């Protein structure tokens, strides 16, 4: 006959579900899910870090692109499914850690349980020879001096000592898991209050920290773009060097940006050098040097010979040798005039790519377009692309060298390559949560090491009269970790009990 289980009440069901949810098995499954769910983010381009590539990917696969996009594969780490996994994991973690903290708190304040009846069954067991009445006192004193939790007692005329050590193991374990929660808090604070922006600054130009000056700016929900720290800087000198040795030809050797910065408009300018790995810290924000490129200078004349453009145009590097592209837009000429610009720092004659990133033999490809570039339609346009839907190409020149002038067909005017300037791109970031995350990480590592390296173990001593009238002291120990032992502890306690000097 099977035993009839009493029906579970609603509360009972809830407790049962909660117990399952906070079990180690659930944590394990959630950890696996988290690992697996992280993978797509390393395979598919992510909108947050690489919006252009993401767009291309979706455009290139009309079937899968939109489906994967809807499923969040291009924003994996903010997708509902990824968030669900880690939120569940953290709830499970809290549900596991809180009761354990309470239990551990109680355990630390209660003395160890009394010595068991039969010590010889323990993992390690020794019988002390040459013991006397005070042996057990000395051992107890030794244990107390070495920060063991000690309980003494007497049962049926047998004096015993029960001692336990290694509570820090569980303390460390709990500290580690709590610290993980605080890392998440740090990340959340950074996400809500932090901001970052990117800006390209040409050599000699300046930047002041207001929203309109940024090329790209993004902030958390509580970041206030109207109240950015009021610093500014000018890029005085930007230097780049490339490796010319055969082994890693063309790889960068040096980036350095000398700037003069002002913490606020009233303060005096101070010089600083920004390098990769050496950001400028000002007003809680950090200014990082993240990239660089070329800005060729052109002079454009219209059909009447009047100068309509005399400026540098920022071109974006497309490959490791800095074949760079950009556009010139002249909406005020009639008809409107536009140029596709490709700048080669080192033109390889007969080729359409640059051969080396340094400006050894600079040249520019140009294509001239006329027509309506669509600037009046009100749709925002990229400054690096011409909208050619209503424009026609009137001609192109494969390689214009500095000092050369290209006379446009049909008397539309001329364009001259005058020279080039360098530009540097900066990322400016403010993250108020990073200190929280850092401190929490340090605590997590500390807790982890305690939980993995501290051994929790118990030692017992028992003193009873021996049949021959002397005293028998038994010592036993137990290490709770698997594969661990207490031999070293037993040895120390034994030496203390017989009165041998131990350090």
């Amino acid at each position, binding site marked *: 006959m099977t035993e009839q289980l009493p029906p579970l009440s609603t509360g009972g069901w809830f407790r049962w579900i909660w117990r399952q949810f906070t079990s*180690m*098995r659930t*944590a*394990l499954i959630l*950890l*696996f899910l*988290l*690992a697996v769910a*992280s*993978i797509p*983010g*390393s*395979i598919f381009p*992510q909108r*947050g*870090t690489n919006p252009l590539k993401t767009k291309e990917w979706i455009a290139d696969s009309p079937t899968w692109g939109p489906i994967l996009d809807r499923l969040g594969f291009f924003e*994996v*780490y903010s997708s509902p499914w990824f968030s669900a996994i880690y939120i569940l994991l953290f709830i499970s973690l809290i549900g596991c850690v809180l009761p354990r903290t309470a239990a551990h708190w109680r355990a630390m304040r209660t003395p160890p349980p009394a010595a068991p009846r039969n010590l010889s069954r323990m993992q390690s067991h020794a019988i002390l020879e040459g013991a006397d009445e005070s042996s057990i006192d000395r051992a107890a004193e030794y244990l107390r001096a070495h920060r063991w939790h000690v309980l003494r007692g007497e049962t049926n005329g047998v004096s015993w000592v029960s001692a336990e050590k290694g509570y820090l193991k569980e303390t460390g374990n709990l500290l580690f898991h709590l610290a993980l929660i605080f890392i998440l808090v740090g*990340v959340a604070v950074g996400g809500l209050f932090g901001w*970052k922006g990117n800006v390209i600054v040409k050599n000699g130009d300046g930047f002041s920290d207001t929203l309109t000056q940024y090329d790209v700016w993004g902030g958390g929900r509580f970041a206030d773009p109207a109240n950015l720290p009021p610093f500014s800087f000018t890029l005085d000198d930007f230097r780049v060097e490339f*490796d010319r*040795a*055969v*082994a*890693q030809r063309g*790889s*960068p*050797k*040096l*980036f350095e940006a000398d700037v003069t910065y002002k913490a606020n408009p009233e303060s005096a300018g101070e010089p600083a050098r920004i*390098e*990769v*790995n*050496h*950001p400028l810290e000002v007003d809680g924000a*950090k200014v*990082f040097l*993240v990239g660089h490129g070329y800005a060729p200078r052109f002079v454009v004349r219209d059909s009447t010979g009047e100068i309509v453009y005399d400026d540098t145009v920022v071109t974006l590097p497309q490959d490791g040798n800095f074949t760079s592209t950009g556009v010139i837009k002249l909406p005020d000429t009639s008809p409107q005039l536009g140029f596709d610009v490709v700048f080669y720092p080192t033109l390889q004659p007969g080729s359409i790519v640059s051969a080396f990133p340094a400006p050894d033999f600079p040249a520019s490809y140009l294509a001239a377009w006329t027509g309506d570039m669509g600037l009046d339609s009100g749709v925002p346009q990229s400054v690096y692309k011409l909208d050619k839907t209503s424009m026609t190409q009137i001609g192109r020149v494969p390689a214009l060298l500095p000092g050369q002038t290209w006379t446009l067909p049909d008397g539309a005017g001329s364009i001259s390559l005058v020279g080039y300037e360098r530009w540097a791109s900066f*990322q*400016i*970031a403010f*993250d108020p949560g*990073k200190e929280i*995350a*850092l401190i929490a*990480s*340090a605590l*997590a*590592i500390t807790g*982890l*090491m305690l939980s*993995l*390296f501290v051994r929790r173990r118990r030692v017992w001593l028992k003193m009873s009269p021996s049949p021959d009238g002397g005293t028998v002291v038994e010592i036993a120990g137990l290490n709770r970790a*698997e*594969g661990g032992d207490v031999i070293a502890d037993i040895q120390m306690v034994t030496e203390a009990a017989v009165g041998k000097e131990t350090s």
Partner: protein
Amino acid sequence: MTPAELAQASNSAVYASMLVLTLAMVFFAFSFAAGRRRVTALATTEMVESEGGAAVITRTEIIDPIVPGRRTANIAMSLTWLGTALLLVGVVLRGLWAGRVPWGNMYEFSISAALGILVVYLGFSIKVDVRWLGLFVVIPTLLTLGLAVTVLYTEAAQLVPALKSYWLVIHVAAAIICAGAFTVAAAISALALLRGRAERKAAGAEVTGLTERMPSQERLQIMANRVIAFTFPLWTFAVIAGAIWAENAWGRYWGWDPKETWAFITWVVFAAYLHARSTAGWRGNRASWIAIIGWATFWANYFGVNLFINSLHSYAGV
């Protein structure tokens, strides 16, 4: 020495190390073969002779306490020490040649990681008799070195500016030790699986075959656990050091760059391993598999992300 001589010497030392390690591998393999012969030898020494109707049983015991195969294993151990010393020389000379820590491209990472595997193994061998593990440590080491000298080889060059930071030393040194320790842990875990199968097959009798001279499956699992318990905090540290460096170099401490993502995956898998070790039903074979998966994610990160995925960490130099 001139740079050219240093380069020559470094490369020679690495090749010499590979040669010596190959010999070590052969000797380790022989020690297993010898182990198997011992069993057959015992079975044939028991003979029954009939002398005038009375049966006399003679049994030749093996008196020599040195088990066959042990001597070859000892030779293999010595060769492993020698190979490690040569590799150390190769790595140091490479650093002298480049005039910096030898961690600027994948060739340098790889020879250092191979050194890391050997150092962790030899460090382990000082405390515990792990000759049975040698073959399974030398093979992945040789594979790593082989890839390094063939596919990944590059001449020493200056560091790219992104790598010019003292965090390179801290972050990469931690990662290299982890590479070694995770590999050793995975090798032990794989052997624990094999040994477990042999134990189940033997059904209580003495285990024979490849894993016969290894510790019991339970001992192997405990050993793997110890190695991982030592490595996990170090890996955590390597990831955090990387985050601090990233904050300084790229303006954010965590950006889900593919390298960071896979480092996180490895971390999560080994966290799962540690949890599995204290979960009923998971502590045995399943935990061993998790350790192997964790190791695979580590090396997938190293080779896969460096060579095939466009990442901020692409410093392969190949």
